[in-house]
C-alpha cells in the first residue's frame, strides 16, 4: 500500500509557501541584526542578543501569546494596523508572521557566525581603496558571508515548516489558509485512531521535507565557496 496515497496536498503546499515567504522576508532583517551583533561594541549587545534569541527557547505558545497581544485588533500594534485596514491575525499572514518570528534567531545565528568569520582586513582593504561602509558591506562583507546567509535561509525555512504553537495561537486552524502540516497532523491526531491513520502520510512528508531542507542548505552552503 502506498502510504502517501491518501495524502492531502493542501497543507503541504501551504507549509511550503508559508515557510518560503517567512524565511525570505526575515532574511534582510536577520542580516541587519546579525551584522550589528557581529560588529557592534555596544555594551547593550548581550541584551539585544538575548532578546533576539528568546524565541529559540521560549515555548512557541508563549511567543504566540505575546504576538496575539501585540497584533490582536485591540492590541498595541493591531489597533494601529486595523485603522489602516490591515489585519494580521487569524489569516495567512499570521501564519507567516508566527513562522518568521520563531525562526528569526536561527537565521541571525547562522549569518552572525559567517560575519564573525570574515576577515576584517579585507574590509579594511576595501575602505582604503575608497569604498564607503555601505559599498564595503554590499561588495565585500555580504558576499563573503553568503554561505551563512544561505544556511540561515534554509534553517529558517526548516524551522518554519515545523512551526505549531505560535501559529495556532495567532493564526488559528483554518483549512487551506493557516492549516500547515503540523496543524493538520494535530487536527488528525485528535480525531482518534482513524485520525492517526490520516496523520501518517503528513508525518512522512514532514520528515522528508525537513530532511530535504537541511540537506539542501548544507549542500548549497558547501558549494558556495
Amino acid at each position, binding site marked *: 500500500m502506498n502510504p502517501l496515497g491518501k495524502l492531502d496536498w493542501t497543507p503541504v503546499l501551504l507549509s511550503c509557501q508559508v515557510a518560503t515567504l517567512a524565511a525570505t522576508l526575515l532574511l534582510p532583517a536577520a542580516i541587519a541584526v546579525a551584522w550589528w551583533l557581529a560588529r557592534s561594541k555596544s555594551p547593550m549587545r548581550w541584551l539585544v542578543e538575548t532578546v533576539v534569541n528568546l524565541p529559540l527557547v521560549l515555548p512557541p505558545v508563549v511567543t504566540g501569546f505575546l504576538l496575539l497581544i501585540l497584533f490582536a485588533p485591540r492590541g498595541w500594534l493591531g489597533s494601529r494596523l486595523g485603522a489602516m485596514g490591515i489585519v494580521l491575525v487569524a489569516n495567512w499572514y499570521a501564519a507567516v508572521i508566527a513562522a518568521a518570528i520563531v525562526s528569526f534567531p536561527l537565521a541571525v545565528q547562522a549569518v552572525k557566525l559567517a560575519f564573525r568569520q570574515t*576577515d576584517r*582586513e*579585507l574590509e*579594511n*582593504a*576595501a*575602505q*582604503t*581603496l*575608497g*569604498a*564607503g*561602509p555601505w*559599498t*564595503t558591506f554590499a*561588495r*565585500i562583507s555580504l*558576499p*563573503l558571508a553568503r554561505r551563512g546567509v544561505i544556511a540561515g535561509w534554509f534553517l529558517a525555512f526548516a524551522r518554519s515548516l515545523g512551526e505549531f504553537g505560535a501559529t495556532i495561537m495567532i493564526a488559528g486552524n483554518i483549512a487551506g489558509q493557516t492549516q500547515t502540516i503540523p496543524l493538520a497532523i494535530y487536527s488528525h491526531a485528535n480525531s482518534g485512531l482513524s485520525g492517526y491513520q490520516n496523520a501518517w502520510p503528513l508525518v512522512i512528508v514532514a520528515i522528508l521535507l525537513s530532511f530535504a531542507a537541511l540537506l539542501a542548505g548544507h549542500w548549497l552552503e558547501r558549494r558556495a565557496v
Partner: protein
Amino acid sequence: MLQFNCRYRYADGFSVEIGLNLENGCTALFGPSGSGKTTVLSLIAGLIIPDRGSIIIDGTAITDTELRIQIPVHQRGVGMIAQTPQLFPHMTVRKNLEFGRRARKLGFREVDHDQLIDALALGPLLDRSPATLSGGEKSRVALGRALASRPRLLLMDEPLASLDEVIKHQILDYLAEVISRWQVPTVFVTHNQAEAVRIADRVVHLAAGEIVNDNPHDSERRIG
C-alpha cells in the same frame, strides 16, 4: 606633504608617541617588531583613532583630536598594502584591480589602468581567481590594486615579508618602477635594513614607539 604627530596607547599599556614630517618620495619606517611601525600606518590610514594628535596631508587635516576631525578611511585617499595581499577572494584579479577605480568613480584613463597592468605584468592574470596565484603574483596584484585607486599617499606594511628572496627582489624592482613612474608618495614599513635602504629616499628608525634616528639621506630619486 605629511605632518604626523600622534599619541596612541594600546589597552595593554604599550604606547606610541611619534612626530614625523614627511616630504614627497619614499620614506621607509624601519625598526624591530613592536616598535610602532604598523601603528603609524594604521593611524594615517584612519583604521585607528589616536588618543591625541593630528595628521595633515597637503595642508588639510585628516585627523585632529583637538578640532575633532576624523576623516573616514574611504575619504582619505590613502592607499594601503597590508602584510598579506588581502585580495578579495570572491572576485577575479580584474575585479580586484577595478575595485578602487569603481569605488572612487574614476575612469580607466584617470587611473592609467592599462599602463599599470603592463608595468606590473598583470595581463595574463586578469581572469584568474586570487586563490590560484603564487605569492609574488598576489603581491603584484595588491600593488596594482592599491595604485589603481589613485591614492595621494601609499602606505605599505612589510608587503614583502612573506615572499622568498628571489621573488622579493623582483617585487622590489616593480615597486621602485611604479613608485617613480606614478610619483606616489610612499611610506614603506620594514624590519629589513637592506630593503629600507634600497627603496627609500629617507629612512626613519623606530624603536619602542619612538623615533631613535631620523636620517633623511639625500637621494637623486627624491621626487618633488
